[in-house]
């Protein structure tokens, strides 16, 4: 069943059909169609974009792998070439330097050997000179030592005599000192005994003061006046007559 089933299209003219078509395809219907087309177009674009992106990613990954392989290969070749060249160059340089060092060392050894030989000759000559000089010097010194020995012997004899005299004098002084020491000891002992006595006496005097002071400190504030009153009155009783006489004066 259609929307326009009750209508009969068969009897329409072209003009009527155009008009009916114009009537049917109005502005709203066209807008609907445009929107439908736009949506369909966007959907197609999205699907194609997704496929295109996947293809592009796969292509980039493939290119990356190939580029990496190619770069590694190139680098290995270049490093192998540089290594071979460098090795050859260093070997050549080292050989040249070794040759130069060998020549210089040989020359130095020759010079040193010559110098050592000369020094040995000089030393031998100097040794001979020194030996003769030493012999002369020893002879001279032997003579001098002999005379000095004699002189010292004389001096030692004199010193010994002087020492004996000094020892005798010292012994005499020692005896005198002993006597003086005994006298001083005796005097000191007497003085010490005297001072000891004086100190003990002073100590006893001070001790009496200390005891007194202690008693004063210990007894002060111990008794109030009420406690002391009987003792005070007793003391005043003993002095009563003197007080009465004083009042009469």
């Amino acid at each position, binding site marked *: 069943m259609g929307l326009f089933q009750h209508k009969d299209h068969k009897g329409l003219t072209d003009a009527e059909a155009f008009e009916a078509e114009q009537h049917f395809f109005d502005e709203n219907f066209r807008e609907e169609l445009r929107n439908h087309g736009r949506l369909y177009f966007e959907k197609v674009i999205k699907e194609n974009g997704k496929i295109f992106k996947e293809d592009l990613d796969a292509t980039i990954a493939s290119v990356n792998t190939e580029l990496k392989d190619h770069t590694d290969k190139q680098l290995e070749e270049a490093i192998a070439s540089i290594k071979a060249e460098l090795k050859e160059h260093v070997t050549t340089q080292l050989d040249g330097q070794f040759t130069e060092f060998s020549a210089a060392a040989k020359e130095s050894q020759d010079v040193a050997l010559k110098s050592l030989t000369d020094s040995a000759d000089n030393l031998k000559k100097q040794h001979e000179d020194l030996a003769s000089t030493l012999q002369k010097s020893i002879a001279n010194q032997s003579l001098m030592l002999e005379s000095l020995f004699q002189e010292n012997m004389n001096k030692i004899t004199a010193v010994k005599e002087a020492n004996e005299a000094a020892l005798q004098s010292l012994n005499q002084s020692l005896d005198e000192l002993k006597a003086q020491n005994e006298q001083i000891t005796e005097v000191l002992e007497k003085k010490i005994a005297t001072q000891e006595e004086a100190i003990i006496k002073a100590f006893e005097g001070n001790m009496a003061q200390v005891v007194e002071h202690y008693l004063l400190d210990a007894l002060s504030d111990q008794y109030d006046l009420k406690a002391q009153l009987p003792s005070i009155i007793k003391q005043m009783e003993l002095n009563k007559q003197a007080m009465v006489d004083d*009042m009469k004066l």
Partner: protein
Amino acid sequence: MSEAEAKTHETFVLPARVVSRVDVSRLVSEIEWIDGELTAAAVRSKTGAEKPVQPAYSDQLNDFLKDNGLSLDDGRERSTLIKEVRLLKDTAPVIHMTFAVPADHESLQELAQWLRTEIHPQALIAIGLQPALVAGVYLRTPNHIHDLSLRSVLKGKRDSLVKELETLRGQ
């Protein structure tokens, strides 16, 4: 002649509460004040005013009046009493007593009583404090000094203490 006129400063009996010259001065002041009050009251009573309240006496004054058989009712007697008590203050012998501890009032009264019984009936005490005395009293009468303190006793016994120490050293 009334009792007050018969009593003079030489015959006053001092109660135990009156210990020092200050106490006597206080008695003089109090009698003078009472005399003033009573004279004023007498004048006011002549004018017909209400009779004033009798002034209260201190314990010292009460004892003094009682011991001497005196009263303060008569104005002339009061004047004589004032004069005599002043004379008493100036003439009563003072004994200076220095103690090692602060003196309490009861002990002072007892001492004053003893002094008035044994030494002089109107003796007054001037009090001093000297802790170095330790105990006892340092007593000064008008012309003499009596050191009855423990310090003095110890000082006097110092020689014997030294001798004791010498004995100990000898043992």
